[in-house]
């Protein structure tokens, strides 16, 4: 692997994922009438907005070599907290949002601190966080509570209407904004570089003078804040709060991140890849919904097979993408030799 091509090669997984997504979309469009419409594309954005937002946070966590299992529960906690705060305690929506994000930030910081200062594995700390957030949500209320505040009505009506009944909704816009901001933060700032460095090797990062503790705390804070934001979006999406919302979202988010080409062992990955990973998952579900003939179990099996298909194809693309490059180096070596001989 020559250095010049390896800087390009880092983009290969993302490119592979994108190609896979486009191919998948094409296949769906050929299979079902009504599929290739702006409406379906916009639905894909709106319906997966909350997942996209948490997945961006998860990307940071995973690149730093960690994992955050608590995000699904944090979404559940957020929606019920907002419902209670707005409906029962009479807090104005924006104040409730702010308060929620502060709580989430503290929660994430606490998890990050536990991971760093007690040298505990992130998997377990965030698993405890998962229990804690969901448990607290139950304690707040086990009912599902509608949110009737005007703001919610406004926001859900406030969509950019496109042709064919398609709408670019507020959740979709929020996700696109988070993805863009995540790309800037991860790829263009010092903090982002530190996240990668931590994923490369915590020990080295420490020896290079990075404050490992501070960065870890910040990463988990970011993840929890984004999970809180995702909770806000979820509550907008459903105009209600429910302690059981967001169950299992952490696994979907992790899968999206990994499908997007991020290495679970840390150090490598892109926010954009995660975004495509989220779309791929959405596409699989849309496919199954459009088909509509699959029984509950066949739907699960099909999800698994499609997941395998995507990942297998991605692996294959990666493999193929690496091969021609070797030939290219040989080619240039031969050219050099020829040049030298003449």
């Amino acid at each position, binding site marked *: 692997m020559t250095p010049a091509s390896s800087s390009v090669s880092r983009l290969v997984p993302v490119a592979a994922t994108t190609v896979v997504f486009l191919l998948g979309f094409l296949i769906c469009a050929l299979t079902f009438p009504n599929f290739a419409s702006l409406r379906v594309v916009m639905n894909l954005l709106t319906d997966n907005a909350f997942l996209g937002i948490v997945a961006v946070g998860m990307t940071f966590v995973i690149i730093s070599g960690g994992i955050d299992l608590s995000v699904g529960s944090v979404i559940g906690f957020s929606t019920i907290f907002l419902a209670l705060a707005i409906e029962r305690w009479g807090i104005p929506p924006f104040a409730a949002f702010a308060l929620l994000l502060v709580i989430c930030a503290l929660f994430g910081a606490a998890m990050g601190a*536990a991971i760093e*200062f*007690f*040298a*505990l*594995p992130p*998997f*377990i*700390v965030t*698993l*405890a*966080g*998962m*229990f*804690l957030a*969901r*448990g*607290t949500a*139950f*304690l707040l209320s*086990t009912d599902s509570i509608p949110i009737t505040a005007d703001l919610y009505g406004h926001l859900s009506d406030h969509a950019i209407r496109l042709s064919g009944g398609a709408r670019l909704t507020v959740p979709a816009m929020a996700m696109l904004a988070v993805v863009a901001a995540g790309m800037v933060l991860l790829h263009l700032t010092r903090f982002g570089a530190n996240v990668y460095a931590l994923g490369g090797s915590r020990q080295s990062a420490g020896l290079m003078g990075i404050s490992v503790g501070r960065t870890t705390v910040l990463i988990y804070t970011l993840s929890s804040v984004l999970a809180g934001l995702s909770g806000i979006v979820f509550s907008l999406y459903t105009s209600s709060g429910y302690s059981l919302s967001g169950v299992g979202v952490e*696994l979907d988010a*992790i*899968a999206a991140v*990994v*499908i997007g080409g991020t*290495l*679970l*062992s840390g150090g490598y990955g892109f926010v954009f890849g995660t975004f495509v990973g989220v779309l791929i998952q959405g596409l699989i579900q849309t496919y199954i919904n459009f088909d509509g003939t699959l*029984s*509950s*179990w*066949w*739907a*699960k*099996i*099909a*999800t*698994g*097979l499609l*997941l*395998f298909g995507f*990942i*297998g194809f991605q*692996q294959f693309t990666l493999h193929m993408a690496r091969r021609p490059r070797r030939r290219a180096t040989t080619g240039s070596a031969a050219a050099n030799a020829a040049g030298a001989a003449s």
Partner: protein
Amino acid sequence: MTVKLPRIGTAQILALAAILAINGFVSPQFFDIRLQDGRLFGSLIDVLNRGAPVAILSLGMVLVIAMRGIDLSVGAVMAICGAIAASLADDHSLVVTLAAALGAGLACGLWNGFLVAVLGIQPIVATLILMVAGRGIAQLITEGRIVTFTDPGLAFLGGGSVLGVPTPVVIALAMLALTLIVVRGTALGLMIEATGGNPRASALAGIGTRLITLAVYMWSGLCAAIAGVVAAADILGADANNAGLWLELDAILAVVIGGTSLFGGRFSVVLAVVGALIIQAMNTGILLSGFPPEMNLVVKAVVVLVVLLAQSPRLASLGLIFSRRRS
């Protein structure tokens, strides 16, 4: 084969003892044991009996994790194998039933191992595929219903007892012994620890890392199959929708509480089982306590954190400093 329990396992064993003591406190009859229809009966036995499936799962999971892998599919594999066992039990001999169920577990493990070792897919996603699809397969077998059986042979595996000890406990102990023999009686343990610790170095040292990866996932599949059969035998039916649901998290938690790092390397089979018992002792304690169920998860979170903090090397060294200061 030496089992070095003291020193390394102190934190875990103390944690287990503490939780049992708390259980005894919230429920005074906790330590009562009597014989009921030739079977030991009591809350302490419940902890062992109910903890058996997760303990068996953790025997496979601990090896997978020691190899730097993870197996999210064990819950779904439990469901598949339970479904197979329950649907065959009444029309076939126990041997055929078990062979089919365990064979299916091995096949699932082989699939996972193939994805990880041959295709090079990251373990968490590779096994996520079977986690999602596997439950579907199990439901396909049962068509979504709870398939019941009456075969006394299979029922014995869940509700029977050997010398008064419930069969699931006996099976778990036998599997523990078998795992110890396989892992510590051969060089497999060393090779797993080496591969998990540094896969590249181990491959260069001539260890067949690919084959071992396959074997370890198959072992995990086998353990999941046994756990699935035990779970089905326990309720005399296969509940494909719920059998083993989220148990993969419990199994991973048990392994980590048992001191094995998720980054691979050193592992302890015995302590993973202790971890499973810690989790079950906590669950049973919650049930006995009479707290409203809304509290369950909060209590669980607190206990998990306390157990982990007790193990944290950082806290231990802090404790050392304090004790030094005092002296």
